[in-house]
């Protein structure tokens, strides 16, 4: 069993030191119950809409991990894994990233860094003006088992979760900062309705747990729509938060649930079988050095 805490937080814009201190308070709260994995949102310690200030606040992954480790160790002993979104400065190239790091040792152990693949640059978003996009979707060994991170819009593309599942992921973690929009006739924001529908489909289609941690609070009029949630490998929502307000969601993941879900609805296995026919279709707009015959 893996005990997870999803943290829905509201950082103070640009106040990295203050937000780190606030994280220390959250860590102290989380120590009150078994916690193996803590998931924080995208841009969790700076705020999301930074524009040019991203160059002032971005950190190298080791420096960011060291800060997290210092805050964790200041609250006591023990080991915990953390997923946290941050703006990454990799020798002068800037990414919207999230790292998976093991805290508690003398030095933090960075298990994986995911750099956001799909940078929204339309409407209210302007990411590609300030960041470079990541080029790789990795699956790594989390405390739960094989896992992948998809940051916000990464998860809006069906192919990303599909690739992650095909590469073995049994858990997909989605740190997000989603400005609320669409106050339609329903009781939920339209973007939240879309998120939940999409994440449920990801979980059910691939038989994976999905953990979604959303930033909350307003940033210059744009309200981050929180709504952190977790989905079982059957696609059922296990726990969910409101759009506004900081909170912690606790959920326990059971690896056996993945096997049961996949045996009941073996869509991932079906895809593994059919994938070559789809992937090597010469009509797909993919550059290939050489193409194998589609038909055997």
């Amino acid at each position: 069993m893996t005990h997870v805490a999803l943290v829905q937080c509201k950082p103070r814009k640009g106040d990295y030191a203050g937000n780190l201190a606030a994280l220390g308070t959250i860590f102290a709260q989380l120590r009150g119950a078994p916690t193996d994995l803590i998931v924080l949102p995208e841009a969790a310690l700076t705020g999301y809409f930074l524009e040019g200030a991203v160059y002032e606040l971005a950190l190298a992954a080791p420096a960011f991990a060291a800060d997290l480790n210092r805050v964790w160790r200041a609250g006591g002993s023990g080991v915990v894994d953390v997923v946290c979104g941050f703006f990454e400065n990799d020798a002068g190239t800037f990414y919207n990233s999230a790292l998976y790091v093991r805290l508690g040792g003398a030095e933090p152990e960075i298990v994986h860094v995911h750099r956001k693949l799909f940078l929204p640059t339309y409407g209210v978003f302007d990411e590609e003006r300030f960041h470079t996009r990541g080029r790789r979707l990795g699956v790594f060994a989390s405390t739960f088992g094989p896992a992948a991170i998809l940051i916000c819009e990464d998860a809006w593309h069906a192919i990303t979760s599909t690739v992650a599942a095909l590469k073995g992921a049994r858990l997909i973690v989605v740190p997000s900062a989603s400005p609320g929009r669409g106050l339609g006739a329903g009781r939920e924001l339209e973007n939240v309705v879309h998120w939940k529908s999409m994440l449920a489909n990801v979980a059910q289609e691939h038989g994976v747990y999905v953990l979604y941690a959303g930033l909350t609070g307003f940033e210059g009029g744009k309200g981050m729509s929180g709504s952190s949630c977790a989905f079982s490998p059957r696609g059922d929502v296990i726990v969910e938060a409101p759009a506004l307000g900081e909170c912690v969601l606790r959920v326990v993941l059971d690896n056996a649930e993945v096997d049961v879900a996949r045996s009941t609805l073996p869509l991932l296995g079906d895809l593994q079988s059919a994938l070559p026919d789809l992937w090597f279709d010469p009509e797909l707009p993919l550059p290939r050095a050489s193409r194998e015959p589609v038909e055997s």
Partner: protein
Amino acid sequence: MIAEIVAPRYDPGAALVIDGATTAAWLEGFLRDELVGRRNITRAVLGLSGGIDSAVVAYLCARALGPQNVYAIRMPYRHSSPDSLADAQSVIDALGINAETIEISDAVDAYLRCAPDADARRRGNVMARMRMLVLFDQSARLGALPIGTGNKTERLMGYFTWHADDTPPVNPIGDLFKTQVWALARHLGVPVAVIDKPPSADLEANQTDEGDLGITYAKADQILHLILSGYRDPTIVERGFTPADVALVRRRVDTTHWKRHLPTTALVSATAINEFYLRPVDY
């Protein structure tokens, strides 16, 4: 013959339906974060005209900050309708917010004696700017943040005085069309008399917004929504609006973009503010 299921015809009003409870909760959260969270200011001050926009904002502020932290300023000119004062009072009474009436007649007339040729439009702009002068001074007196009351329809139609109605640093209803403000008002329990009366800037006798604009808010909002959604005029006409109405709305939007921006600054460097040097408003 098997059954046919026909998709419903396009309903241009359906896209503008809002859920009152969700909208109110969202905007209250916005006010709390903008005032208390970001600025550490617990008080709000607004001009309460007796119309629906400022009434809705008063309700939202009272719910977000507590009525004891909301200051409504009534700023009548000598020609303002007595009904406006009475309608504003009904909001004040219903909410239990702080209220004050500051006549702007003497101040406006003092200037207008220097501008005897001012027509109705210029006189209206002077009154609107005088009200904002008063509101910001009261802001300094009360330690309260001025709250804007302009709605999305009037912002898009350019139906406001630049650097007057649009001046407060925080506006909870600026992304709501007028018809959505009406819906929100009904949810909040704004007095019916305020909701049902014809909207008016109350700058001249018998003035109404819809008379000034030449189109009803119901039509204008739907056309605006389609324009902002990226539809071209012929498509909008196909959806049930007259070419004249579509052209009227399109013209008002296209000729007033400048009113929705800060002043145009000549760019001469590679560090021009808000062009190269980019920082969000809350940084």
